[in-house]
């Protein structure tokens, strides 16, 4: 259909012959925050990431329709089929794939309260000639708001099956499943001037939006679709009453209020600190590390290995740099509890709808660094895992912003494992010394961001963020999402912990560790003023900085570091690149040259800032503490 007319002939055949077993693939699609992932869970019985932040679902979730072989694919939310950013391209590719192959059906999930916006997509699906089922989700909320939708009339007008659901409670889901076999191409008689319809249909047919510049007719195309969608919505849905869900509405407004928004932000950060810093890194780590590992696991494993006659093999597992006593112990006893509590807290924030509001509150701060409030999502997620966060920089619209966000993540955002260790260490020093760490790290981030924003070519994207209604997160979603992320994290981190331990073990056996510690002495002792053994920590810091931080934590607990040394060590290790996986991720997203440049910039900077902090702290009289 290279030169498709403005209106295509209607009455296409159903995607699947009546009586056939059903489509081979179902693609879920819809605007952000309409409950796609909830419907996905209900259809497949499998849990996917249910997110409240537009653009979080960068990954695609797949599952099988309950009791069948039909594949169900969940896609990131979008407002127009034609992609305007990298993450929207994912859905576009899925739809085109579904269109190209036979037996695939699109289930468009719509917010029943917002029919006009949803119908824009339905009309586009019609122009793409994709067999569709329209699902009016959250129909309970619509009813509460006094919205009445004539589903039968809508069905007749659009020519596709229309079903109402409340996906979170599983209502109407069976009806969606049985409607799959009668999916049709939505009617596509859309009044549109020829100079808009021509290029728009061409764009839909070609499947490629021109890189960079967005064609000028696109907004007029959207306007024409909206006008027609509004007309259909007006015919079959009554208007909402302005009241209803008052509490959620008020909460949502308070969270972005020019004055009240700040206490809310402070409360959220305090809550995050209490959960991750105090409970996770304190209580839980104590329980698991001191109680479980030091009390039971390590002595038991050591006694188990006592029968092994070779000292080398014994040390490999249970020695000073033992895979179990150091690698697993750090990974499972210290890092895991912290990561798990952080991801739980993050999932709660995500599903409550607070994160986009955080973007509103922090927009000004990020603008100094050449970004906008949207960057807060990768940054906050970076507090969980920088590597994962590097992947989500895709939600940022311009190349420059993605690069800036990656640089800042790699430079200064401590991941939860490291943050937990840092918070635990900082608890041992005076508040003023802890403040030095924060000022140093935040100052370097802002300074580097400000400079890089001016040096890097390109533009900052526009700040346009949808604020979903505030909702009470569902416990099941939060827990399953946390479990999925912790699993991802363990797969990423544990092998590196073991590898790092193994490297140290080999270096130690080969008597190289001492020479490396000696070689690092001018830098570590001379510049940073740390004990020579800290070299070993920084060495493994190249693999994972939280591993290094944990090592330093161990040293400080033994009384090996004074206040200045502790803060200097923390600042330096915080500014290290998070881990080797992060470097790989940057290379994957932006190429090896960028990754190498970022690494070559960050490591010297980390030591330089560490040295500077030492001089400043000694000058301020912290040395006497």
């Amino acid at each position, binding site marked *: 259909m290279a030169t498709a007319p403005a209106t295509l002939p209607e009455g296409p055949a159903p995607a699947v012959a009546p009586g056939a077993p059903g489509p081979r693939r179902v693609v879920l699609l819809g605007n952000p925050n309409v409950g796609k992932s909830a419907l996905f869970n209900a259809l497949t019985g499998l849990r996917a990431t249910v997110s409240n932040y537009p653009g979080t679902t960068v990954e695609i979730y797949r599952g099988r329709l309950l009791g069948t072989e039909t594949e169900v694919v969940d896609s990131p939310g979008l407002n127009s089929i034609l992609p305007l950013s990298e993450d929207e391209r994912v859905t576009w590719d899925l739809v085109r794939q579904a269109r190209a192959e036979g037996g695939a059906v699109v289930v468009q999930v719509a917010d029943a309260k917002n029919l006009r916006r949803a119908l824009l997509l339905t009309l586009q699906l019609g122009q793409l000639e994709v067999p569709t089922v329209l699902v009016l989700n959250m129909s309970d909320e619509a009813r509460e708001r006094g919205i009445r939708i004539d589903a039968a009339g809508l069905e007749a007008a659009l020519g596709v099956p229309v079903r109402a659901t409340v996906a979170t409670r599983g209502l109407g889901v069976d009806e969606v499943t049985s409607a799959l076999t009668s999916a049709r191409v939505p009617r596509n008689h859309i009044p549109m001037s020829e100079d808009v319809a021509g290029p728009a249909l061409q764009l839909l047919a070609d499947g490629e939006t021109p890189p960079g510049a*967005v064609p000028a007719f696109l907004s007029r195309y959207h306007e024409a679709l909206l006008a027609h969608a509004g007309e259909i919505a007006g015919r079959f849905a009554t208007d909402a009453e302005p009241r209803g869900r008052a509490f959620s509405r008020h909460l949502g407004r308070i969270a972005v209020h020019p004055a009240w928004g700040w206490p809310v932000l402070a409360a959220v950060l305090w809550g995050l600190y209490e959960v991750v810093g105090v409970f996770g890194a304190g209580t839980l780590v104590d329980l698991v590390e001191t109680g479980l590992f030091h009390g039971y696991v390590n002595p038991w494993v050591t006694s188990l290995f006592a029968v092994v006659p070779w000292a080398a093999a014994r040390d490999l597992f249970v020695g000073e740099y033992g895979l179990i006593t150091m690698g697993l112990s750090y990974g499972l006893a210290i890092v895991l509890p912290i990561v798990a509590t952080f991801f739980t807290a993050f999932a709660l924030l995500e599903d409550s709808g607070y994160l986009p509001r955080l973007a509103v509150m922090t927009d000004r701060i990020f603008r100094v660094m050449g970004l906008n409030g949207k960057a807060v999502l990768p940054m906050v997620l970076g507090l969980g895992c920088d590597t994962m966060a590097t992947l989500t920089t895709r939600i940022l619209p311009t190349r420059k912003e993605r690069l800036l966000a990656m640089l800042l993540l790699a430079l200064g955002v401590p991941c939860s494992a490291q943050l937990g260790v840092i918070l635990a260490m900082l608890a041992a020093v005076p508040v003023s010394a802890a403040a030095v760490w924060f000022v140093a790290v935040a100052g370097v981030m802002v300074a580097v961001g400000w400079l890089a924003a001016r040096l890097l070519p390109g533009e900052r994207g526009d700040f346009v963020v949808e604020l979903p209604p505030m909702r009470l997160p569902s416990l099941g979603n939060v827990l399953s999402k946390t479990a999925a992320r912790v699993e991802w994290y363990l797969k990423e981190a544990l092998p590196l912990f073991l590898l790092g331990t193994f490297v140290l073990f080999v270096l130690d056996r080969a008597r190289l560790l001492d020479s490396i510690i000696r070689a690092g002495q001018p830098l570590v002792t001379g510049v940073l003023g740390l004990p020579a053994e800290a070299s070993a920590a920084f060495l493994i810091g190249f693999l994972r900085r939280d591993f290094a931080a944990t090592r330093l934590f161990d040293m400080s607990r033994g009384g090996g570091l004074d206040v200045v040394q502790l803060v200097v060590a923390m600042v330096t290790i915080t500014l290290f690149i998070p881990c080797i996986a992060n470097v790989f991720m940057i290379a994957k997203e932006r190429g090896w040259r960028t990754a190498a440049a970022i690494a070559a910039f960050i490591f010297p900077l980390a030591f330089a800032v560490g040295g500077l902090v030492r001089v400043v702290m000694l000058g301020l009289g912290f040395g006497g503490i």
Partner: protein
Amino acid sequence: MTTLPLAAGSDAVTCALCGFEYVPGGDSCREHGCPVAFGTCATRHCPRCGYAVPDERRSLTARLVRRLLGRRPPAAAGTLAELPAGRHGVVARLEGDPGLLARLTAQGFAPGVAVHLVQRTPTFVVELGETTIAVEQRVAEAIVLDDTASR
């Protein structure tokens, strides 16, 4: 809305009852048989239906009452960036970079769509129907409002 070609566009007002647009003044008061139709009366009558509204430009009391009730007098709107917080408007057109316009229209911004500006800082927060969207100043400047329909 009935739209008539008006010579003095800036003085034109819309009748809140019947939607008729007219320029206040003239003899419509007397024609409708108003008992207080003398001199500097601070109410205006729609020439079509006779509905009376206070002329806030002439009456301090009307302005005070309006302020006490928390409803401000209508103002010329311009772009969304110039609309005071808490006010409603209707989109007249979008102006700016094609990429931004494509994004805004996909979000539902289009001529004729009613918007409600919730707040202006830290960023603009605007409601269109059931959708709430946060935008920055330069995006708000791209959304031109219909002067006559703002309230």
